[in-house]
């Protein structure tokens, strides 16, 4: 009883397959670069991020454009932009990765639990989610941050607390329909416990959605942090973050475009890098997509 099958190739590990995708590797390299900056910035830059240089401004008080002594130019206080960007990577990574990750985690937990268990647990969780969703996120962030003393970790927490809602909502819907699928019933019929079903059979199917929301969330959270610092409830100056560099300087985008576009590009590249890895990961994890590139 043979059938028309092809010689089986030994399936390689997910990592090995990931490694064969050029774009994913590019993404990993870029993320590595950002992490490198975040950790080693003090050793890589020739100026401190907070040093205000007298020669960093023109006589009229205008910042210097890229090129020359300050490689990427200076900001409105005559500080070296390159150094600020590299140091800013730390804040932005914490926000974009940790806070966003935490939001994703809470959202996934709430959405999946509510969608899988239904019943009163589900109702309570979803009504709470609806409540949180009806609450203007920015206002909540402002109030929470103003009540606690602002610090990077508080801000990260606040961002996580306001950003999980949409993820929860979307995953809830997806989980409810997944939980109805026959193979979940099959697992239950085998006697599989809830934990096993949730982690082995539900979560893997949510990966694509989680990846889409997670990667898009990076920019959103990084910019939300900036909005908060702009309101005085984020990371306090002079600590740089990519977001607050933009916000500090956004009115100057014509006079000193580099102050807005360079940090903007940094955020974009970070988000894209995660997206490249995320997309590749999704395809690698999705067996129906094997055979593509």
């Amino acid at each position, binding site marked *: 009883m043979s059938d028309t099958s092809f010689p089986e190739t030994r399936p390689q590990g997910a990592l090995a397959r990931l490694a064969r995708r050029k774009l994913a590797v590019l993404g990993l390299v870029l993320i590595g670069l950002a992490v490198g900056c975040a950790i080693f910035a003090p050793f890589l830059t020739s100026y401190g991020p907070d040093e205000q240089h007298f020669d960093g401004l023109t006589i009229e008080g205008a910042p210097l454009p890229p090129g020359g002594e300050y490689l990427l130019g200076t900001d409105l206080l005559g500080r070296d932009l390159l150094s600020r960007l590299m140091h800013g990577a730390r804040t932005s990574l914490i926000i974009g990765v940790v806070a966003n990750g935490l939001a994703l985690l809470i959202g996934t937990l709430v959405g999946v639990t509510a969608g899988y268990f239904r019943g009163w647990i589900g109702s309570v969780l979803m009504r709470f989610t609806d409540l949180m969703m009806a609450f203007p996120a920015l206002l909540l962030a402002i109030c929470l941050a103003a009540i606690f003393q602002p610090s990077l970790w508080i801000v990260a927490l606040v961002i996580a607390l306001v950003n999980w809602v949409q993820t929860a909502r979307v995953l809830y819907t997806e989980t409810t329909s997944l939980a109805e699928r*026959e193979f979940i019933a099959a697992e239950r019929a085998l006697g599989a416990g809830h934990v096993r079903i949730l982690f082995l059979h539900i979560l893997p199917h949510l990966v694509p959605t989680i990846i889409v929301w997670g990667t898009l969330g990076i920019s959103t959270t990084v910019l939300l942090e900036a909005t908060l610092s702009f309101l005085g409830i984020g990371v306090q100056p002079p600590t740089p973050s990519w977001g607050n560099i933009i916000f500090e300087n956004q009115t100057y985008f014509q006079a000193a475009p580099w102050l807005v576009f360079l940090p903007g590009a940094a955020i974009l590249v970070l988000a894209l890098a995660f997206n490249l890895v995320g997309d590749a990961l999704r395809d690698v994890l999705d067996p129906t997509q094997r055979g593509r590139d």
Partner: protein
Amino acid sequence: MTALAQTQPGAVKAPGAEPVLSVEGLTISVRTESGLHPLVSDMSFALERGRTLAIAGESGSGKSITSLAIMGLLPPPAVRVTGGSIRLGQTDLTALPEEALQRIRGNRIAMIFQEPMTSLNPVMTIGRQLTEAIEAHEALGRDAARALALQALRAVRISEPERRLGQYPHELSGGMRQRIMIAMALALRPDVLIADEPTTALDVTVQREVLELLRDLQRDLGTAIILITHDMGVVAELADDVIVMQSGRMVEQGTVEQVFTAPREPYTRALLAAVPRMRPAAPAPVAQAAARGQVVARLSDVEVTFDVRGGLFGRVTHRVHAVAGVSLDIREGETVALVGESGCGKSTIARAMAGLVPFRGSIEIGGKRLGGTAADLRAARREAQLVFQDPMAALDPRMRVGDLVAEPLVIHGIGTAESRRARVVDLFERVGLSRRHVERYPHEFSGGQRQRICIARALALEPRLIIADESVSALDVSVQARVLDLLRALKEEFRVSYLFISHDMAVVDNIADRVAVMYLGQVVELGTRAQVFGSPAHPYTRRLIEAVPVPDPRHQRQPSARLDTEIPSPVRRLGDPPPRLRLRDLGNGHVVAEDTALHPTA
């Protein structure tokens, strides 16, 4: 290859007629990480007007892929035609651009797909889905298109065709959807109709009707039909010519008489030998041996209802009485078959026994009451394994099949990783799959292969009871025979009991010790196989038996009354439960429902 060389071209081609469709040396390959691999190689045949070509063969032999290739609908991007030609009249379809293919699809070649449940767009009305096919090919106004659509619906003899136009697919039963698919395919009177397992998903009575429908339509319109099926009974009833496929190759080709009466190839012979047949009805020998073991599962007065909500505050207004009081014992080493029309509650009983739906009454498995403690439930689940009706849906598409089969062992903490692996390989081989398949994913298998994976999975725990819900319906006869043999062997070896749910009476006739016939959530007849098939007491049972296709092309079937009405509905108002049927004992455990008021034709 040898098979092809021996085939006389004249066997298929009627002298003088120009073929509408001819396939020459068709090769279809899949691109994988390790290069191109052929799924179908060197396929050749020709098809003339008004004739029916059946492509039979084991599951996974490339039947569906071939038909998709003809339609130009191979799943992108991995699967492609890599050689040969498909000619419709004079045009080579493989060389046509998409635009030109669009003009041919639906218009000159139409196809009915294997899965009627998912093949209709859920958000579009039936009417729209019909008329747009018409409008796509003929310059007709809305009204004219509507008239044509209505005509097509009438042609497939669906009840209340006008009303159907405004309905959505989910409002129709599987059989009705299949008719809609046929109507859609036939609306434009195509030269060629490809029907891929048009009846596999349907129960016998509906299958009957659909087959007759196809025959009538062909007679009236002169359409050439390619009928893909693994059911030799269907082949015998409908086909003029037959191609037998195995492993992506044609092994035999000829007229239906030739193939059935004088099969040349050993594979064909094996295939035909494996076809289950209804044994001639013999009077029941008194007192069969099987019934005296220990009771493995006991259902007493099991009722399952589903609530339908509506009205203010979403109160329950209606109930679906899916199972309305079923009592049944299954003894050790016994196979009880549960037969009945689609929607009569067979699967619901299976689900209740697996602890998946809440029920009233009591179910005991291996002495443990379901609905008792969690530990009882777990123990019961180890004792009884459910093989689901739809194998694709029942397998997590993101797990390797090897892991899926090993899962029950992991869940119940049996064995080490190594021993489990060995067991998985062993199970695979037992169900006719190879160890190479272990690392693949469900979507990489054909429908029949998946079903075998599900069975392997159920066997992993060596349960005392296996509930097999339509487990062999999707299998080709040879595999079906092997699986049935396997089930039988397990029964001998481990004294496993089966609750065997099926609509295929021939299969049931071959495997069952006792048979329960269900209608609208209740058992209307119960007895040993010999009792039920030998002397069916309930008219509904008789109807079911009559509908079974006979795998003999010379068999003449007398036309039966067509059933255009819908099956009476199990949905009832709250507080209006269905009347319980009283069972009359005919002796020796043969019971039959007294009340015939529920009989569909009554």
